[in-house]
């Protein structure tokens, strides 16, 4: 509250009133605070993460980008609590969200037993695969992923799906993302886009961007790259639902390679225009 009163000196004896910006407009927030999401949010199931996200959870109706070097760092265990809550009709307040969870072009086969052990209801999961790249496209040479982007846009603008998880092709053009962001406004639930780590350096229309990485067994390192609010300094360490027993975890060594790679991944420039 110091900075605003310094920049607006008192005029004619009127004291500047430190109005909470939310009272002026729900979409306003101070740069120094974590923003409140105007739309609905879905609790992540991780208290530490909820505290870092504007609105206290995964935002609905906007894109959320998750950047990871390769699949398998713990993304399912990160999202599972929120998705399970959504499928049981507990997400998002009085009116429940649609419950379908749609996966677009997952990088590998989702393991059915693991997902149901994580609390997801398999019957509400739909996997949508794109055309194989080697398809004999005699008629028209389709752009890579153009079908998928079409399907994704249709899904988002229809507003019938609960949560959407999409693994986007590499080197996606920026206008495609903006289109998706526009379409997502009609979507009632959260939209998670998984992208390669290199996309970190490119601007994106998604208002929330997170970088995920493994940090030892059953631990996820999560760095908030972009959010409505101040840049977050330290990466979060989230304890995921365990695969290993405590004894096994004790045996696990600190990840060796990550120690060396730490400066490169853990301190992305805080002021970077994400």
């Amino acid at each position, binding site marked *: 509250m110091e900075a605003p009163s310094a920049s607006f000196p008192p005029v004619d004896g009127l004291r500047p009133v430190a109005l909470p910006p939310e009272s002026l407009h729900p979409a306003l927030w101070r740069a120094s605070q974590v923003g409140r999401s105007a739309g609905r949010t879905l609790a992540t199931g991780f208290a530490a993460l909820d505290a870092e996200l504007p609105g206290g959870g995964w935002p609905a109706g906007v894109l959320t980008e998750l950047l990871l070097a390769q699949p398998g760092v713990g993304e399912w265990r990160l999202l599972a609590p929120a998705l399970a809550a959504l499928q049981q009709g507990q997400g998002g307040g009085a009116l429940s969200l649609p419950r379908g969870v749609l996966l677009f072009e997952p*990088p*590998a086969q989702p*393991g*059915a037993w693991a997902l*149901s052990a994580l609390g997801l209801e*398999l019957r509400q999961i739909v996997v949508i695969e794109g055309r194989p790249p080697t398809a004999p496209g005699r008629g028209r040479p389709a752009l890579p992923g153009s079908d998928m982007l079409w399907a994704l846009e249709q899904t988002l603008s229809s507003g019938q799906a609960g949560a959407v998880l999409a693994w986007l092709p590499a080197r996606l053009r920026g206008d495609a993302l903006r289109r998706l962001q526009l379409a997502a406004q009609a979507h009632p639930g959260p939209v998670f886009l998984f992208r390669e780590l290199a996309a970190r350096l490119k601007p994106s229309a998604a208002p929330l961007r997170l970088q995920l990485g493994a940090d*030892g*067994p059953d*631990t996820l390192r999560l760095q908030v790259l972009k959010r409505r609010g101040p840049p977050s300094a330290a990466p979060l360490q989230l304890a995921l639902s365990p695969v290993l027993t405590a004894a096994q975890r004790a*045996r696990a060594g600190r990840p060796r390679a990550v120690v060396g790679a730490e400066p490169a991944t853990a301190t992305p420039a805080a002021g970077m225009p994400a």
Partner: protein
Amino acid sequence: MWWLALHLPQLSLEAFSATLAPAQRAGPVALLDAHRIAAVNGAAAERGIRPGFKRATALALAGELLIGQADAARDGQALQAVAHTALAFTPMVVPEGGQAVLLEAQGSLRYFGGPQQLCRRLRDALAPLGHRLRLAGAPTAAGAALLAQWGAAPLDGDPAWGPHSTDLGQLRRLLDGAPVAFLGPAGHEHAAALQGMGLHTLAELRALPRAGLARRFGATLLDTLDRARGDCPDPRQPIVPAPAFDSRLELHARADSTVQVLDGAAVLLARLVAWAQAQQARVGGFTLRMEHERSARPDHAGPPHTELTVELAEPSADPAHLQLLLRERLARCELAAPTLDLRLHCHHLVKRAAPNGELFPSRQGEQEGLTRLLERLRARLGDARVQSLQTQADHRPERAHRLQPVAQLPVSAPAPSLTPPAPALPPAHPALPLHRPAWLLTAPEPLAVRGETPLLDGRPLQLLGGPERIEAGWWDAGGLAMRDYFVAQAADGALVWVFCTRLTTPSGWYLQGRFA
């Protein structure tokens, strides 16, 4: 009795134009019947082409004139679609001649809120078929047909609402001024002779002695006059929709691309929906058959026709939805040869009451929306690409789950979920550790080995959990798996699932999945 007559003055021209591309439709179009121009559209009329001209005269006036052949069968199918649509308003629907449909709507007047309201709704219902309409209402069927055909100045000043009367006396006064040429087929036939005798209106005709008129022009003329004036009974037989739908459309120009096919198919789909709605049914699936042009060269004999079957997960009577599905399906399909002729056949009709509309968002409505969305995705991407995930009872990880094309997501049935319903948020940590990885590789990836340690991406894996021995599948040919599974930590800290084959040569390490 209150009859409503729909007169379609341009029916045969509109039935022909439906097969044309929009650009052609805008230009001058004429129909030829027995070497004379039978009907012209607006653009042709502007050039001065009139019905009755010879072909050469018309072409001299407009060189780019598109001339089609009149086809009574095509007109009949178009008129039938109009009659089917009208069945939504009253069961008593009678096609009259080749250009009109009569509805006995006395019983429906109160329900639809009066004649004017009924006519407005009828126009809206008929709009997708794209015909120009003239409406008239009268207490007698023949009278209504005559008034609609005549199309005299509207009485109430509402141009959408033609001449009409609800009272027999008023109708008789109105009919007295009507031209004799509109008095049914007989009047049309003898129009020139009557004209020559100085008989222009029905009043003049009626003033003549009946016996003489009957001798001169036959009994039909007087009979029609009597029925129009309500002097003698006029029983009619209502139309009954055919039990199966099969409609054909000959394209004017051969269609080389699926886009052109879609233009024609839209007409057929509108007819299909009209037919289905006449029976209070919804369409569950239809087949579009495209007859191809015969290749002149025998060595290039392609298939004589292509059939495209569209199955709906949820039966629908919404032409826009059906057209959307067909468009996506057509976009995927490649024409083997130019198409000349379209045929739409409905093989799956669902005669069940349509589900109620929902006032508030509900699980049912939401599920329906998702089903429709998936249907659209399936139409574009292919049925096999939209899949649902299922567990299977097998120990081998590659067979423990199955992706199969999604037919229909279950509607909020009591779900026998594997997890007990959690009180609030399900805990981020289930009680038991995860045994299976969330990502499974389609085919196990062989790993390099240094000494005894498997390597992933050139870095050693640290085995933390296991071994878990899986030996199963001796009953499947080639499916025998003898493996020891380990949970291992990769160099970056992520956990992976690897196995070591047993008792096989060469034995080796493989990556099976990742604990995402």
